[in-house]
Every structure is written in structure tokens, then in C-alpha cells.
């Protein structure tokens, strides 16, 4: 189990291996910055966070998910700072024996991260304007 808050870009391809031999299902989610928000062209997002609290909370969420769905393993990484359109801001991967708990567990983690992590998003538009979510 590993929950990380980081500034560096996320390389999803590096995060899938290695895995235990009892794993039958890997479900991943990537949240990606789109190039528009409310029909306006986005330059980038800026994520502010309380890094210490967010790190504690993201790991708490993973533990809850593992317990609730009987997962074998789970990773969650949330970027902070500047993230550009096309880049992954949130990556979650869940290893389980069967697929049902994989899908349910992955969804639970993503929903909980969006509800509970002390992270805030600011839109920076191409026209120079900006606004907090």
C-alpha cells in the first residue's frame, strides 16, 4: 500500500509492476487534466495542498479500501503544483484476486480522494484569468 503526494509527473507504466502471483485483477484509474473547463480553454491547473495531512489521509483511504474490499494491494498518487492538459493528476491502481472487488475498490478510493483529501484546484485559463474550485 502506498499513497503519495508529489510534484513530479506520474509515469503510470512504471507503477503496474511487480505484483504478487495471487493477483487476478488490476484495475487502474487515471484522472487527466482536460484542455477545457466550462467551455473555456485551459492553460493549466494549479493544485495547492496541505502535503502532510494529504499524505496521511491518502494512506488512510488506501487502508480503508484494503479492509473493506479485501484488496491485495493498492497505490494512489496525487500530483500537486502545476499540471497541464493531457497530464495525469491522479493515479490509482488496485490489485485483487477477482475483478469485482478491484472495480469497487478502485472507485471507492477515487471517490474518497475527491471528497476527503485536503487538495485544492485552481483553473488557469489561456486568456490569463484564473479561478479556484
Amino acid at each position, binding site marked *: 500500500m502506498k499513497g503519495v503526494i508529489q510534484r513530479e509527473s506520474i509515469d503510470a507504466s512504471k507503477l503496474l509492476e511487480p505484483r504478487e502471483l495471487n493477483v487476478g485483477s488490476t484495475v487502474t484509474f487515471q484522472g487527466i487534466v482536460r484542455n477545457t473547463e466550462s467551455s473555456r480553454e485551459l492553460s493549466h491547473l494549479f*493544485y*495547492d495542498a496541505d502535503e502532510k495531512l494529504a499524505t496521511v489521509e491518502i494512506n488512510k483511504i488506501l487502508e480503508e479500501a484494503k479492509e473493506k474490499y479485501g484488496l491485495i494491494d493498492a497505490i494512489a498518487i496525487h500530483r500537486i503544483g502545476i499540471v497541464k492538459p493531457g497530464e495525469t*493528476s491522479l493515479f490509482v491502481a488496485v490489485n485483487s484476486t477477482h475483478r469485482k472487488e478491484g472495480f469497487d475498490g478502485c472507485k471507492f478510493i*477515487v471517490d474518497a480522494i475527491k471528497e476527503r483529501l*485536503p487538495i*485544492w484546484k485552481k483553473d488557469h485559463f489561456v486568456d490569463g484569468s484564473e479561478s*479556484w474550485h
Partner: protein
Amino acid sequence: MKVHIKYYAKYAEYAGTKKEDLEVENMTLQQLLAFIRGKYPKMKEDKTSLVALNDRFEKEDKTVSDGDNISIFPPVSGG
């Protein structure tokens, strides 16, 4: 007594600073939050604000002590 306040995201803009020290009476987190939301009324655009005490989320009836580090957050919007 003196407490150290940190503001995050848009609240840092509303307060005009990322941190400040406040002189306060004996009070709960809830009372402190109400005081700060009164000081920076734009925070009231959010129905609630989040508060952490010494890097932990605590019950709002907890009382603050001299030298405490307190963080004030808008509702979260990550992901």
C-alpha cells in the same frame, strides 16, 4: 495566548497571507473558525470551512492552547 494560523488555496488570497499569528482568548476550534470567518467574510461564501489542529483533523469542540498550529481550509476539490 498566541496561535499560528495557516491558510490554504483561495483562503490565502482572502486573508492576503499564507500565515499569521493571532492573539485569542481560551476557545474551541469551532469558535476560532467562526472568529476567522468573521475576520475574512469572503470565506463565508463556503457553507463550511475545514480546520486542522497541529496537522490533524480534530473534533471542533477541542479547545486551542498557546502555540498551537492551526490550518484553515476551503472545502476540498482535488482529483
